[in-house]
């Protein structure tokens, strides 16, 4: 890679813009707060990034395929309480894990089937399941938080070799999803379907099955996210993950995935999730009102996408 190529890369790839922002925020925090570079804080940041990142991996596939999944926040809540209840009632934490991921998978699969077979728009479908999943979580718990402190919760709060387990999961899943997206037929079909669904179908791709697949993956990863979040708090609240879909979608968009489908990289999505996690941490460390953090994340999304769109336009002229 020559210097000119590097400049071109930075100018034309949103991932690069966001990576630059990430480095800036990291350096800024290092100087601004003595607590930032402590092991305890960094492992907190890693945890914060992990759940957003894991759920964003699935969301990224959905958006690349030309869809959107608004239900992930509610699925987090429903799978957390499902995991807690199943492991408590059966006494088998492994069944709790299966239950949490399974319920997410089922909702994702249902999303995919409704979208492809009944041809309901993805936005509407997942807006519906967002409401249904949250309602179900509140219904089965009667609105009460569930204790969740068996070994299944370890995935959420535990550490291996000083690293949070969920962060290790994020790294592993990133590699798996990246391989899937770039090196397998089904992964590349996801891009083709999002780029031009009609052409993809006429070229022999099973478009419906591809869409069902991405929604199922997204639901499953949201289910895992719920398990981790509940485990981290050792308490599964039915309201867990409220509004989470917005952070997740923001991470995906920051990572350079085109909302119109067909374009985006898995690596970028993790960078996007990291930036959001870091920003959230920054406000805690700098003791700024939490309200400001919400405003800032909105501004960052608009800034990153705006800069990208300006660059792209000058590229095409």
């Amino acid at each position: 890679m020559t210097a000119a190529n590097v400049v071109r890369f930075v100018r034309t790839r949103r991932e690069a813009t966001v990576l630059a922002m990430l480095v800036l925020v990291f350096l800024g925090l290092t100087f601004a707060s003595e607590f930032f570079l402590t092991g305890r804080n960094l492992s907190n940041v890693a945890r914060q990034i992990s759940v957003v990142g894991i759920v964003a991996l699935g969301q990224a596939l959905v958006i690349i395929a030309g869809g959107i999944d608004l239900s992930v926040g509610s699925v987090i809540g429903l799978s957390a309480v499902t995991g807690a209840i199943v492991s408590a009632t059966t006494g088998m934490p492994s069944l709790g894990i299966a239950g949490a991921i399974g319920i997410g998978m089922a909702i994702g699969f249902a999303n995919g089937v409704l979208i492809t077979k009944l041809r309901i728009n993805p936005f509407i479908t997942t807006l519906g399941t967002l409401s249904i999943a949250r309602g179900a979580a509140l219904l089965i718990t009667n609105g009460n938080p569930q204790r969740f402190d068996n070994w299944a919760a370890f995935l959420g709060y535990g550490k291996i070799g000083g690293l949070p387990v969920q962060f290790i999961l994020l790294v592993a899943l990133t590699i798996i999803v990246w391989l899937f997206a770039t090196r397998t037929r089904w992964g590349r079909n996801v891009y083709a379907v999002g780029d031009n669904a009609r052409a993809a179908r006429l070229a022999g791709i099973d478009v419906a099955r591809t869409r069902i697949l991405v929604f199922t993956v997204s639901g499953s990863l949201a289910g895992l996210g719920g398990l981790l979040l509940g485990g981290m708090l050792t308490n599964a609240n039915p309201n867990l993950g409220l509004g989470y879909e917005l952070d997740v979608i923001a991470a995906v968009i920051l990572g350079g995935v085109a909302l119109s489908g067909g374009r985006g990289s898995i690596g970028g999505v993790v960078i996007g999730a990291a930036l959001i996690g870091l920003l959230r941490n920054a406000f805690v460390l700098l003791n700024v009102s939490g309200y400001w953090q919400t405003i800032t994340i909105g501004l960052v999304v608009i800034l990153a996408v705006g800069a990208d769109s300006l660059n792209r336009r000058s590229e095409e002229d």
Partner: protein
Amino acid sequence: MTDCLLSARGIAKSFDQNRVLHGVDFDISAGQVVALLGENGAGKSTFVNILSGALPRDGGTIVWSGAETVFRDTRSALDAGIIHIHQELSLISSLSVMENLFIGDYMTGKSGIIDRKALAAKARELLARVGAAHIDPRVEAGSLSTAEQQIVEIAKALARNARLLILDEPTASLTPHEAEALFAIVRDLRAHGVAIIFISHRFDEVFAISDRVVVLRDGRVVGDRPVAETTRAGIIADMTGRAFTFDALDKPAIAADAPIRLKAEAIADKGRVGPVSFALREGEILGIFGLVGAGRTELLELLCGIRPLAAGTIVRPDGIVPTNSTEAWQSGLALLPEGRKTNGILPSLSLAENVAVAKRQKSGGILDLGVEKSLFARFRDALGIVSEGPEQPIRRLSGGNQQKVIFARCLASEPEILFLDEPTHGVDVRTKADIYKQIQDLAKKGMSVIFVSSELPEVLALASTVMVLSRGRQTLLAPNQGLTENDVLTAAFAQA
């Protein structure tokens, strides 16, 4: 002609290097219906688009009701009373009929509030003038049938005081009964002094309603006669009289005992095409000709399992009849669809991916990107694809090169039968020649090809067997030996 409403002299137009109109002369008087005929690409649309201000002309003059005029845009032509009704209707389907009729001028007066009662009354008046008093002006335009929408378009033209009405294939999607109602309106408008340019591929309609027939060929007027002095055969001769632009390619002889790859027995869909029967042998090139809307694309979709079969049977030696495009490719069919941009390319994806995408669906799940790149390199060389490399997104390529990439996609899947829908549409002469040569070579190696084309010389140059469709029916199926353009066109215009 003494009282010319519009008189065009020496109208010329080029797109890039390509000259489309070579000095067209055209006159029309008030109260006259002139039919404008010609093959696809003869320049009809370009010419009427210049008249209606949609395209600027490169040369020539237009005299409009006695004064030389330049219409800079459709707005100024519209204000002068020239109204072009396109084949694809342009009503806003979610607005009511009356809102569509008076769009842009709701006669609100000072208050700025629309008087719905007054608007409805005015709309009823207009609809009654075009014999459509039964249409309620308050319903949504989108709820009307195509024929009714067409009539509303004409009423809309009247609302703007049309003096010259251009109708571009107005009957393409109408039933004969609806078309007859439309002609009654056209005759009435003529009686009221409106001039009408009527573009159609249907000769019976041309003879039924026009006063004069003007034929364009390769951007020149080659015939301009009163309808009484015109014959069907004369028009066909005018339309096709051009020098043969393709070298006569040698057509591979198909042995009578060559194995049959696909046999269709009276196949049909629900209403658009059929019944069609034929047998396709190894190495055979079946060329399907027909006018736009004759059901050609629908027939290919039927054969590839994309469109459900409503009647008849398809027989293949291995017994596999696909029911969707995935199965079609997996069972050895390959389709190059019509409409490169909407149905062909995956715009953001790389050239290598655009080539490999169909072949992938046949093999395992893990990809070997190196193999796919060398696959692209092979076709780049064989087809002469001009690009920056396998990673370039296909949207950056020219149309002709994009078409070659989609062609490569078909070949890469190593099909038994290759289906090509308008394979040379919108590609330059050199690319055309490349594609013809490829098709011939493949057929010699035993691949069977079915291609659809609206370019008659192309069909006659390339096909070993010719099929003609007319309004969905098969009107000709014959070996391409001694077939003339006249034979094929007669079949294409036949009333099956």
